[in-house]
């Protein structure tokens, strides 16, 4: 087994005319450890889909190299294809066929043979809760069912590396949960997942490591917690009951945190970053009580990935 299931170095890609200055990818690096879920985040047009398409052998890069499960995707695309699964931005199923027929079709094209394609289709229908709808036309499936069928099709071979390009866009919370469960099961079975998403909570929940990209480059690569630490770690947040108490609460927080707290007048809230989390929280609570300041809410908050994302991609978080 290779330590890195996906390893991309200096990927470059420019669409269309040679004199067009914009690069979809401009020296993109990525290292995905085997057996993990790796999130790829970035604003619209950052190059996420382009990167995934190159890694899935659908696009040829203009420069750089990429290995998937130890295979060079440009030199030996056939071998790479036997090791990957792809779920693109649109559900790639034949709507004129039933769910079962779709999976059998793809199973045969994966060269499983008729009999194994049939048993594998039944297994996957069962795993994705589609057994009941198995013999209905996929054209009549809901968005979530179609997505699950799509996911099932990409897992026919239990690929070494699975690419999911925004797998839950447009799904309701329940359907998203189902997709997440499916991904977790798959990872437990040894598959490595590269996930692009617009939902930061999704990356937070599934991924053990995240690459943030912008304008065709990786601009950060860390664990979700590591990324959050970059924007200042945990903060203590106080919401006072009376607007008049705001300056007093502010003073308390300033003393404990040792920094200048930020104030949100309209919501009667002050917050400041702290290092010694629990001790700081206890100290703030005790002091507030001693000084007789009525508190509506007191909490230790982790920064959301949204904060990280906005900070890193250069757009100011709406504070």
């Amino acid at each position, binding site marked *: 087994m290779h330590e890195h299931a996906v390893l991309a170095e200096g990927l470059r890609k420019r669409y269309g005319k040679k004199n067009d200055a914009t690069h979809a990818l401009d020296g993109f690096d990525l290292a995905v450890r085997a057996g993990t879920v790796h999130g790829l985040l970035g604003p619209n047009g950052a190059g996420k889909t382009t990167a995934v*398409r190159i890694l*899935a*052998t*659908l*696009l*040829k890069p203009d420069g750089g190299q990429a290995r998937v499960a130890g295979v060079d995707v440009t030199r030996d695309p*056939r*071998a790479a*294809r*036997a090791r*990957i*699964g*792809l779920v*693109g*931005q*649109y*559900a*790639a*199923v*034949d*709507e*004129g*066929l*039933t769910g079962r*027929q779709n999976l059998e*079709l*793809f199973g*045969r*094209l*994966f*060269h*499983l*043979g008729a009999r*194994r394609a049939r048993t*594998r289709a039944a297994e996957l229908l069962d795993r994705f809760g589609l057994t009941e709808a198995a013999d209905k*036309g996929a054209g009549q499936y809901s968005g979530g069912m179609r997505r699950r069928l799509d996911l099932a*099709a*990409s897992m*026919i*071979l*239990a690929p070494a590396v699975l690419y999911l390009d925004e797998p839950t866009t447009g799904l309701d919370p329940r359907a998203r949960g189902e997709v997440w469960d499916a991904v977790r099961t798959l990872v437990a*079975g*040894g598959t490595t997942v590269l996930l692009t998403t617009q939902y930061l909570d999704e990356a937070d929940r599934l991924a053990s490591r995240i690459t943030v990209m912008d304008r065709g480059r990786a601009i950060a690569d860390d664990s979700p917690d590591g990324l959050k630490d970059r924007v200042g770690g945990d903060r203590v947040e106080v919401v006072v009951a009376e607007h008049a108490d705001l300056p007093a609460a502010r003073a308390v927080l300033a003393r404990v945190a040792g920094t200048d707290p930020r104030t949100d007048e309209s919501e009667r809230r002050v917050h400041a970053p702290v290092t010694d989390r629990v001790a700081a929280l206890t100290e703030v609570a005790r002091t507030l009580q001693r000084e007789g300041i009525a508190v509506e809410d007191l909490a230790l908050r982790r920064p959301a990935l949204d904060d990280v994302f906005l900070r890193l991609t250069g757009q100011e978080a709406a504070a």
Partner: protein
Amino acid sequence: MSTVTTPADTLGGRAYWAVADCWTLVRRTLLNYRRQPIAIVWQLGFPIVSVLLYGFVFGSAMRVPGGGDYREFLMPGMFTMTMAFGLMNTATAVVSDSGKGVVDRFRSMPMAPSAVATGRGLSDLLVAAAELAILAATALAIGWTSDGGTGPTLLGFGLLLLLRFSLIWVGVWCGLMVPNTEAAGALYAVIFPVTMISSVYVAPSLMPSWLGPVAAWNPISSTVTATRELFGNPGADGGTWVEQHAVLMAFAWPLVLTAVFLPLAVRRYQALSR
């Protein structure tokens, strides 16, 4: 984990999977029709309505040069028109697959890459053959016959399928050029006049003098005239060189179309990875 039966990287292994994957994709098309047999009726709707409309409503007003029954004259035109409109089936199927990401999925799988094209081609030919069979049965029912004998009759249907074969590549190319199925529908605006300005409904000799030669040199006209000749139906003899050598031209045109559009379609398909 399921294991992969990677196509043996020998020439024999590749050839085996090229055929097997092609057949899998043909099965896919046939399954689609089996689930929705009505689709084929829709596709045949236009020619059948045309037969009824032109054959029975306008038929008495239509003239066949050199005399003869208009319905007998019309049927080879309907066969050919159905083949020509088949281009739409190909283009629509291609654009719907590429738009939905099905083509991407195929391309990311270890299947034989050629099967995407050969599977499409063979499917379309089988469907075209079924359409011809249904249309011929309808024609026989309303009194059309082929007086040309078995050999020429089979050759006539062979030429019809040859035309359809050449149009597969035009259809694949068009399907890869247009952005979505709605845009593919707009191809009718091109195909419809092209089939009208031909010998399908009216002999070119009866058209205005500037239009007649255009219609006569239309590749569709060559197949129409050739099948009229081979089926022994009226209206086969025209004055121009291209009409007098219709069977030859019914071979030549599809070969030219294939020679032009097959490489274009392949180039366009390969450009997907650029």
